[in-house]
């Protein structure tokens, strides 16, 4: 399929999107938000490490101790493992929720577009020049 070799021209036509296929939306958005969730988890780990290394956590501990919120030898942030598990859980929940929302949105869009007609776009279309160029309508 050597489409590059075929000379193409552009024309401006209208397109109305009447339907998103919910199954493909689910597939794409699941993978999309899965990668996003992974990125978020990595980002939060990096941010957590930076915050710990700067010493903000120690500062917060000190402040909490000074207002006698915690005992002297206790740290607020010693259960980092558990925090990490919570973050992972929430990002997985977020991923499932968001892809579900996207799928639901596409279903709702399909119903709405049945009533009011869908989005109308003007698109530039690339069409191969084969034979006669498109003729004007009389």
């Amino acid at each position: 399929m050597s489409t590059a070799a075929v000379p193409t021209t552009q024309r401006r036509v209208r397109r109305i999107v009447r339907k998103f296929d919910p199954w493909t939306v689910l597939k794409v958005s699941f993978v999309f938000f899965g990668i996003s969730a992974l990125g978020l988890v990595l980002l939060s780990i990096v941010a957590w490490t930076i915050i710990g290394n700067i010493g903000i956590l120690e500062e917060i501990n000190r402040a909490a101790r000074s207002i006698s919120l915690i005992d002297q030898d206790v740290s607020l942030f010693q259960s980092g493992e558990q925090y990490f598990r919570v973050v992972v859980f929430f990002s997985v929940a977020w991923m499932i929720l968001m892809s579900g929302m996207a799928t639901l949105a596409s279903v709702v869009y399909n119903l709405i577009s049945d009533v009011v007609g869908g989005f109308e776009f003007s698109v530039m279309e690339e069409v191969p020049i084969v034979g006669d160029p498109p003729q004007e309508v009389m």
Partner: protein
Amino acid sequence: MMPAVRRVRRVIRKFDPWTVFKVSLLFHAVLTVGLLLGLLILWSVIINVGVPERLDDFLTVITLLEDGDSFFNNGQQYLRVVVFLAALFSMAMTLLSTIAAILYNLISDVVGGVEVVMLEETLRLQPAAPAIRQPQAWAPVDREALTEEHRPILDSTEEVEVIEDATLASTEVIESDPLVPSQGD
């Protein structure tokens, strides 16, 4: 112009990241400017209502502020901070949407893209109505060149009634029709 419409399935396989970047840059710039203007108007309304003064009074009462001091006298600096944050927001959103476009392209390579049903306007033409032509010459008809369906018409001895039609008479006669090859060709 009467465009024909057909219903087709299309799979969106790719967003061009460069065009996404261009469009979202402008979009978020405009959005940010609008938000800033809205914030300015809101701020001036709040100041005119006198909310900051009363807040200052309250803060003075609970001795968080000294008497005669104000929390809101450096509005210029607040504005600068807000403008900086807004510019940051606009850039971050532009970058995010471009990254989303690239990510979509990669994902659609793996799982296939989003499938949509579209109504398409086509420029594929219905055959145009035959132009009204004057006979150029009463040349003898070449019977062999005619198709089977035309021969009976030529052979018929039926009397043809000539109708005087006002709409036909007022129709402009097209001398040369570029769509139909002339008889000389």
